[in-house]
């Protein structure tokens, strides 16, 4: 551990730290543009200059200089001050003074740092450079004249996303950042370069000229577009969520967010259910809450009532529904809408046990039936890191475009029981082997075989549990913890022929078997569920209610309410509470706080943010053999997996342009 002195303050820094990191440890702020903690070091903006002794008598770029024993670092000397002023002046030579019309204004590194470290004026009076805009797809708006060539975007797409598509063409003053032939950036994390861009060169296209950062109310929330549970911040103005940005959480999303989680928020204002609807003579017509509740009570469900949870509901809603059904005497709860019926007697067997941060350290990974890139783009980033650390990855299932070297072992599940030699050797020799079972594998009943595989290769060992299940519904783990699972899945619910089916935002379920039931849709978007429903009770989306979510690694997280639901829509639990009155039963809570404490009393793990403990893996049935082929993955269109995304114009455009662009071109020809 080298000892260095920063501005007279002596401190020890970790081995391998840079001078910049040493300064940060000492509490000094070092201005920077190109340096980023999660990217490789480029050292090309020169903003982080400091004075270092021993060394040449000139300022040095601290981001690329290793801290060594006995260094005397000064960040407050005259030399450093003038160096920063000089660099700043050079950076601003070709930077337009268009802050008033720039979307980055107010949250711009260049703006802030020129105020803090610049010299206040420019001596440059020659012509400025101008660069043509580059097309980078429907999400990224470019104003390339503002670019200061920090190459963060280039390094992000190469290192983190693993899709080499942004590059720096030409050289010197003519250097331009662009994609090849100005093709749209085509991966699920493309919009993260907007956050990375320290200036206004890459800004958000859907959010262009919508709001200024200081007008926005910031609410801490959780992304519900997949089961990763990325930590996000919802920026809202008035009653509208303007944008979603990632928060830093090294255990979950680091500081990235998938394009879907980021840009589906415009769907929160479209196709909303803002009034009560009832089906009268085959047609949905506007009704009042009383009418609707009376109609449900008239059905006299008694015990014959079922609840199906959608993919994006919070635990509180599910618990409220469970309490209502419990009071009626029913246990017909299910969350796996598409009919999956895997065994949930042990939650450890359906959990992502190695955690996202842990999977980075795995050295042999078998992915069974999961297109991770689409089902959890942020976990794909972790897998890429694992491969960089030397992990070998094998995939069972149809081919998908990986962002890391991986070997496809075919589509036949029987390969699980007898791996090809190369793969078997990799797992035998691995210190931290792991398996990831995706939805496609669970649907084929391969869970037992996966557990047998875990047993055979000792995936669970001291300090390591490599058995992972990858869900892609934000509500799934919470639902399973609350008992939203029947032995036979949806088939059991259908068999029970309930008089009333409560659909808690369930849009992917098949309503066909419930033709004779009274279908009550409690949700927020006019999607498949609402089309099939007899009664629609407008509810709140994830942005409009407080709620607890559990991600696929069993991490309990709490999201806050950012805005109010539109029109007559109410928070889900209040609807269920009122419904209890209409049905004449007592659910035992009158406020959200009471509901939450009742829920925590029933499932204590939901009361504590962080990883829930599901115990050890169950004993595997060594005879379990999976058969059949994984012919397809459940997600057909990454951008349109949930009702909010389907309502979002931005997501529809992404889907049309990025996934079906070739068809569009053909149609045009």
């Amino acid at each position: 551990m080298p000892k260095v002195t920063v501005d007279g303050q002596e401190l020890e820094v970790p081995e391998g730290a840079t001078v910049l990191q040493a300064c940060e440890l000492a509490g000094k702020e070092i201005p920077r543009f190109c340096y980023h903690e999660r990217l490789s070091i480029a050292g090309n903006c020169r903003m982080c200059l400091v004075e270092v002794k021993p060394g040449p008598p000139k300022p040095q770029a601290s981001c690329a200089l290793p801290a060594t024993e006995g260094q005397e670092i000064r960040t407050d000397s005259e030399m450093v001050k003038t160096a920063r002023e000089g660099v700043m002046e050079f950076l601003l030579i070709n930077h337009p003074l268009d802050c008033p019309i720039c979307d980055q204004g107010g949250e711009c590194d260049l703006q802030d740092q020129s105020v803090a470290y610049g010299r206040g004026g420019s001596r440059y009076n020659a012509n400025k450079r101008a660069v043509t805009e580059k097309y980078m797809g429907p999400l990224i708006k470019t104003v390339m004249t503002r670019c200061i060539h920090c190459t963060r975007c280039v390094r992000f797409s190469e290192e983190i996303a693993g899709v080499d598509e942004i590059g720096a063409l030409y050289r010197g003053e003519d250097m331009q950042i662009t994609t090849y032939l100005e093709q749209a950036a085509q991966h699920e994390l493309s919009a993260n370069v907007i956050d990375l861009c320290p200036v206004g060169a890459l800004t958000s296209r859907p959010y262009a000229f919508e709001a200024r950062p200081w007008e926005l109310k910031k609410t801490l929330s959780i992304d519900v577009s997949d089961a990763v549970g990325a930590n996000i911040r919802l920026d809202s103005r008035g009653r509208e969520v303007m944008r979603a940005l990632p928060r830093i959480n090294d255990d979950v999303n680091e500081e990235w967010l998938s394009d879907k989680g980021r840009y589906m928020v415009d769907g929160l204002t479209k196709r909303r259910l803002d009034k009560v609807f009832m089906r009268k003579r085959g047609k949905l017509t506007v009704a009042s809450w009383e009418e609707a509740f009376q109609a449900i009570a008239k059905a006299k469900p008694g015990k014959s009532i079922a609840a199906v949870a959608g993919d994006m509901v919070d635990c509180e809603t599910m618990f409220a529904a469970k309490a209502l059904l419990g009071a009626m005497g029913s246990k017909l709860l299910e969350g796996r809408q598409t009919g999956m019926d895997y065994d949930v007697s042990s939650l450890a067997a359906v959990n992502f046990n190695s955690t996202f941060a842990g999977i980075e350290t795995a050295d042999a990974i078998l992915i069974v039936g999961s297109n991770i890139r689409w089902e959890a783009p942020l976990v794909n980033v972790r897998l890429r890191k694992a491969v960089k650390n030397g992990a070998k990855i094998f995939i069972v299932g149809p081919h998908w475009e990986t962002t890391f070297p991986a070997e496809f072992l075919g589509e036949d599940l029987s390969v699980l029981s007898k791996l090809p030699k190369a793969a078997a050797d990799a797992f035998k020799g691995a210190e931290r082997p792991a398996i990831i079972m995706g939805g496609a594998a669970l649907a084929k009943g391969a869970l037992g075989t996966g557990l047998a595989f875990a047993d055979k290769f000792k995936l669970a060992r001291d300090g390591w549990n490599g058995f992972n299940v990858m869900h892609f519904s934000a509500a799934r783990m919470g639902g399973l913890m609350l008992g939203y699972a029947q032995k036979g899945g949806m088939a059991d619910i259908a068999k029970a022929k309930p008089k009333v089916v409560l659909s808690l935002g369930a849009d992917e379920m098949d309503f066909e078997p419930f033709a004779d039931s009274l279908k009550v849709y409690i949700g927020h978007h006019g999607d498949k569920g609402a089309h099939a429903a007899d009664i629609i009770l407008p509810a709140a989306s994830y942005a409009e209610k407080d709620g607890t979510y559990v991600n696929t690694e069993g991490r309990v997280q709490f999201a806050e309410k950012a805005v109010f639901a539109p029109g007559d829509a109410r928070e889900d639990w209040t609807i269920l509470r009122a419904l209890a009155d209409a049905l004449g039963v007592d659910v035992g809570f009158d406020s959200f706080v009471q509901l939450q404490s009742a829920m925590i009393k029933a499932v204590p793990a939901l009361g504590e943010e962080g990883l829930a403990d599901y115990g050890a893996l169950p004993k595997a049935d060594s005879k379990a053999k999976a058969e059949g082929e994984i012919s397809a993955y459940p997600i057909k269109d990454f951008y349109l997996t949930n009702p909010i995304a389907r309502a979002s114009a931005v997501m529809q455009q992404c889907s049309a342009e990025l996934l079906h662009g070739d068809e569009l071109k053909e149609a045009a020809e």
Partner: protein
Amino acid sequence: MANRHLAHDTPELRARWGSFAWTEENKAKADYHIAKYPPGRQKSAVMPLLDLAQRQVGAETDTQGWLPLPVMEYIADYLDMPVIRVVEVATFYFMYNLVPVGKFHVQVCGTTPCMLRGSDDIIAACKKRGMAKGEVSEDGLWTLTEVECMGNCATAPMVQINDGNYEDLTVERLDAVLDALAAGKEPKEGTQEPGRHTSEPSGGPTTLKDMVDANHDYRKEW
């Protein structure tokens, strides 16, 4: 030196170069370059391969050659690397031509030593012969480019035409070289100064004169 740009990606360009592939001879050369690097590091060979491709394009079009986009894509494919990385390299280095050039690519050095020794006259002379910067002359023979220092400052001014350097130029000497080239002859490369061999001081040595004939020990004289 600015004003470089990639040739537009047009259907005509794709039709002309879309089927580009190494000739047998060049394939051997390409593989030779790739073999210089450890397995898995084949992309290190991108620069020699770009040069090779430019020469092959040149041979096919009887010019100095250039790098159409489909050719860069072919190289990216051949080296199993992202095409944007190939384009980055090709656009960075001035010796890769991004647009078609003539049979003779006249690259006049315009950096300070050459400028002081009269490179402005050389450029004017080129222009007088109908060349224009960055364009192919009507007869398809000439393209003029002003470049930065080529490292021949001792024999300034100079031009580089395709692979040959012609140094110690005057307008007359340049005309003689260009006329010879146009006539299909191979003028002498290097310095055009009569009596001068390479870049030695013209008019005999100016220092260490006693060393010309035999080894001389200067130490006594210090």
